[in-house]
């Protein structure tokens, strides 16, 4: 009698042990997987965060560029000026992706855009550097490229000091469109002019020839990614004198979503209370 009971409990124990073992092993496996996945994601997040990277002409917006780029390097091989660099480990950039360092070598704006043509996945997107010609056919136009935007450090640009320099202006492939020179009176001397370069974001392609040409020790005009260099006004600020700008209002709901302690009150009430 006693033996039989022991046998049964032994069986149960073995069974529960088997089940227990299976459960524990599954949970351990999952734990391992989740840990690995989180570390992996963290690593990618850290690398993705690098904002100051200039992509080849025709590059899709950074997020979609990063997902489509297979890191094959064919754009780098296609560049006749060897201007493109493929990020290697230790570059602090997403590894294997192409980028430009204009101070070392800028983009020389090839008309046939060989780097874009070499891309097998569409990370460099033809449609972003094409326009319709007179017959409605798509035609490449390198001047549509938005690699980045040139930004001037007015404190170190010697032209802004009043010394004559127009290196960036002269070298700009879109001279008088992307960079213009503004004449102002030099108040310090009272008899000279300041010939100051000014960048225009609508035309600037970010090729970086200006950064390369800049005569100061560290370039005082340099290319930044547009998302870094430029602000963005909300659709509630409209240049009312510009019909094109009015179009930004289309589809914008009149309801405001911004709620602050002040805006939660009725404007009249807020004025009458007199606590401003």
């Amino acid at each position: 009698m006693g033996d039989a009971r022991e046998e049964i409990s032994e069986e149960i124990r073995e069974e529960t042990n088997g089940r227990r073992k299976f459960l524990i092993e599954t949970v351990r496996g999952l734990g391992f997987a989740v840990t690995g996945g989180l570390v992996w994601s963290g690593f990618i997040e850290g690398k993705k965060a690098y904002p100051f990277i200039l992509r080849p002409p025709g590059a899709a917006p950074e997020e979609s560029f990063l997902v489509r780029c297979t890191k094959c390097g064919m754009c780098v091989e296609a560049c006749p000026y060897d201007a493109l660099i493929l990020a290697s480990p230790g570059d602090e950039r997403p590894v294997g992706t192409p980028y430009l360092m204009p101070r070392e070598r800028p983009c020389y704006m090839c008309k046939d855009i060989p780097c874009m043509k070499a891309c097998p996945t569409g990370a460099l997107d033809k449609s972003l550097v094409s326009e319709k010609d007179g017959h409605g056919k798509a035609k490449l136009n390198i001047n549509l490229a938005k690699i980045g935007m040139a930004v001037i450090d007015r404190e170190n640009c010697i032209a802004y000091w009043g010394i004559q320099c127009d290196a960036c202006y002269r070298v700009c492939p879109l001279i008088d469109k992307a960079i213009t020179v503004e004449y102002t009176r030099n108040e310090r001397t009272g008899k000279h002019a300041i010939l100051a370069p000014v960048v225009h974001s609508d035309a600037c392609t970010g090729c970086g020839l200006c950064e390369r040409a800049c005569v100061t020790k560290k370039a005082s005009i340099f290319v930044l990614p547009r998302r870094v260099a430029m602000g963005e006004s909300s659709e509630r600020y409209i240049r009312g004198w510009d019909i094109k700008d009015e179009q930004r209002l289309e589809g914008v709901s009149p309801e405001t979503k911004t709620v602050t302690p002040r805006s939660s009150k009725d404007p009249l009430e807020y004025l009458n209370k007199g606590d401003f």
Partner: protein
Amino acid sequence: MGIIRKYRFMILRRSSQLSLMFLFFAGNAYGWSVLKGNLSSSRIMDEVPLSDPFAILQIFAAGSIVSSEALLGALTITTFFAIAGGRVFCSWVCPMNLVTDLANRLRRTFRIDSAGKSWWMSRNTRYWVIGIGLIVSLFMGVAAFEWLSPVSMLHRGVIYGMGAGWAAVLSIFLFDFLVIKNGFCGHICPLGGFYSIIGRFGLFRIRHHKGKCTLCMKCIEICPEKQVLSMVGKKDGMVLSGECTNCGRCIEVCDDNAMKFGMRYISKIT
């Protein structure tokens, strides 16, 4: 002559690995158009596209579509390796194989395994890594493995410059040499796991003739995926597992002619 016969597949494999690597290198350095790009995506003679199907799969998981060219390239590669069978990519193309084979060689020379118990890791880890990689791709919106693949780092390094990539290669070498036997290629690498799945039903397979086998176990000793040789000495048969890399080392070390390459579905087992 004997020595060449003894290493006939090794010589072929090294020639295949090195010449492919050189052609890729020359594509960038000398502008040769035979092979341009790298193992992630490339073109033959500037025309025929090739793409790493695992990378493309990750891009899909990340929620993006690729051009038809990349898709066609991935399909070409998948078809090729599916027909070839096993992990032909791993032992005939992959540059990391040179590193891990060297690690394994030194492991035997210094008899690391005789020093007692070593670390254990499941060979199924690689399939988990595939799964986790696809999930991470989904959540992070990028092809996750491509961001840290030491295989691509090494291959890109050879073509475009190594940067700090040597550290990744060195750590794989040390891991395989001192920590786990065939640790990277045989346990972790999801690319290898992916090709195991693709090559599962392929044509070229190792076959074993039990009648000639003298149970010396040299093949088991040399095999980087010894679980696939479960039939050795027990019964005639073909290696059917996709995890076999078709490296042919077992054929070379066998002094009894008990191992041969065969064509699955076509040649007879014995």
